[in-house]
């Protein structure tokens, strides 16, 4: 087990060095998310009102969730690049843990997402968003957010190995995830939806994550009577654990065979 950890550590170290050496990547990972915060918070916030509070307070959790999803193609493209590089043959000819390359990529990308969160939080606080809970709950919220980012990074890694071209890696994740995103409580409270659609949206993992963030940060909730809507934190943890349990082994299995073309 210690050797496995050592392999993971080494590959995470490699990815963090990469990030430090690609300042353009840091810029692209922070600027657009900050623009989203202003766009949704100030512009939409001034036009949309929700029953139980301020839309600006409500939407922050949604934007945080959205940014984690829109980063999925980056991980997919990065994973595809890793595989296309002769370096993977070297890694595969070493007596190392096969999961290490993917762990390095997903942890590295999650670290980048943490930087994104810091930038977004700063802009959010500037435009008047507030966390109305304790420090512990606030941090727990960011913990769930990053766990969601980590889970989405694994989804990206898996998709990156399933597709064969950078174009597909760039578009496929959005095709799969954006409908899920819109059919959730990320952007809107679900009260106005027809019953069946509302049930789907309430049990959607993205609603669970957005709901958990709102609960932990003391922001206005999307409201709802279902078990999922009333217990967003356990639901979010359950969903993320479930997705990781499926996606991580699938991704590692794909990595073992992906380069044997």
């Amino acid at each position, binding site marked *: 087990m210690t050797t496995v950890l050592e*392999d993971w550590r080494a590959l995470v170290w490699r990815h963090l060095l990469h990030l430090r050496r690609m300042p353009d990547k840091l810029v692209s990972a922070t600027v657009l998310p900050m623009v989203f915060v202003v766009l949704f918070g100030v512009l939409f916030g001034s036009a949309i009102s929700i029953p139980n509070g301020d839309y600006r307070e409500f939407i922050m959790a949604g934007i945080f969730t959205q940014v984690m999803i829109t980063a999925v193609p980056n991980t997919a493209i990065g994973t595809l690049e890793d595989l296309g590089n002769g370096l993977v043959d070297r890694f595969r000819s070493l007596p190392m843990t096969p999961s290490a390359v993917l762990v390095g990529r997903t942890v590295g990308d999650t670290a980048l997402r943490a930087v994104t969160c810091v930038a977004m939080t700063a802009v959010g606080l500037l435009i008047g968003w507030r966390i109305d809970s304790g420090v512990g709950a606030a941090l727990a919220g960011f913990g769930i957010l990053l766990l969601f980012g980590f889970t989405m990074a694994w989804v990206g890694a898996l998709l990156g190995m399933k597709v064969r071209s950078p174009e597909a890696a760039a578009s496929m994740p959005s095709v799969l995830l954006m409908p899920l995103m819109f059919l959730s409580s990320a952007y809107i409270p679900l009260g106005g939806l027809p019953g069946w659609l509302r049930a789907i949206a309430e049990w959607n993992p993205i609603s669970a994550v957005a709901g958990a963030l709102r609960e932990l940060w003391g922001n206005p909730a999307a409201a709802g009577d279902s078990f999922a809507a009333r217990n967003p934190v356990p639901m979010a943890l359950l969903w993320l654990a479930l997705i990781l349990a499926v996606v991580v082994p699938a991704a590692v299995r794909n990595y073992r065979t992906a380069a044997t073309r």
Partner: protein
Amino acid sequence: MDHAIRAEGLRKRYGDNQAVDGVDLLVPAGTILGVLGPNGAGKTTTVRMLATLLPPDDGHAVVAGHDVTKDPKAVRAKIGLTGQYAAVDQRLTGRENLYLIGVLHRLGRRAAKARADGMIERFGLAEAADRLSRTYSGGMRRRLDLAASLLADPAVLFLDEPTTGLDPASRNDLWAMIRSEVAGGLTVLLTTQYLEEADQLADRVAVIDKGHVIADGTPDELKRKVGEERLDVTVAHAADAPAVAAALARATTVSPTVTPDGRTVSMTVPGGMLGIPTAMAALGEARVEIVDLAVRRPTLDDVFLALTGGARAMERSAA
């Protein structure tokens, strides 16, 4: 004698393409085997199977004392692999690249650092060690790649077309490094498209075509099959080529071949250089317009033409 590599009946198919079709290889420890063949002959697929990157469909192989399919991890601990493209991380420095490989070889962080520093010195990379490898020249990147492959003292080194894209000086450097490693007991399997490279480095050569080993022996044995010197006569008009071939055949009793473009007549020269005047005289009598005349050493194309009975010209146009 101990065999560092023993492969029997290796097969691999990709869809309709039987890339490797029953390859047997035997490499005694401490020697270099050159695997010679054109693009698509199955060289890389064979190396990938031996280096545990690719499971064979059939057959089995023992590398450095371990079976590649039953115990790939034990094989990986004892091999180094340098593929066709320098497998270095371009966003890491040379030193960081080697350190990473050392850690992944489970040397421990401190030993990996020390070993990386040692390899930097040994491969003449001291000045560039702390620059990103992206800034390296092709030759330096290859040296770094080789250093990474040798870092953990492997018993067997696979070199898959290691000098592709290198200038002659870097190529000679690389050859010298490989020779000195073998002098230290390393076993090498080298794939190449160049007879000269196999000639310079290999103790034995296996010629591979369409997934089969079609000949093997020492470089000298192979070259004897082809003849030492070759004469190429290029005529101005393709229509004259058969007349030239006939004239040369009459004068020397060797039957020349005509290249696919129909303008160059190629043959071995019996008696080496001393046979040249006879050939020249025959050309004079043929009275055709000749644009080029060259005496050269055999190339892989010639080995192929000889081994496949001249029935098949290689697709490779640049010889």
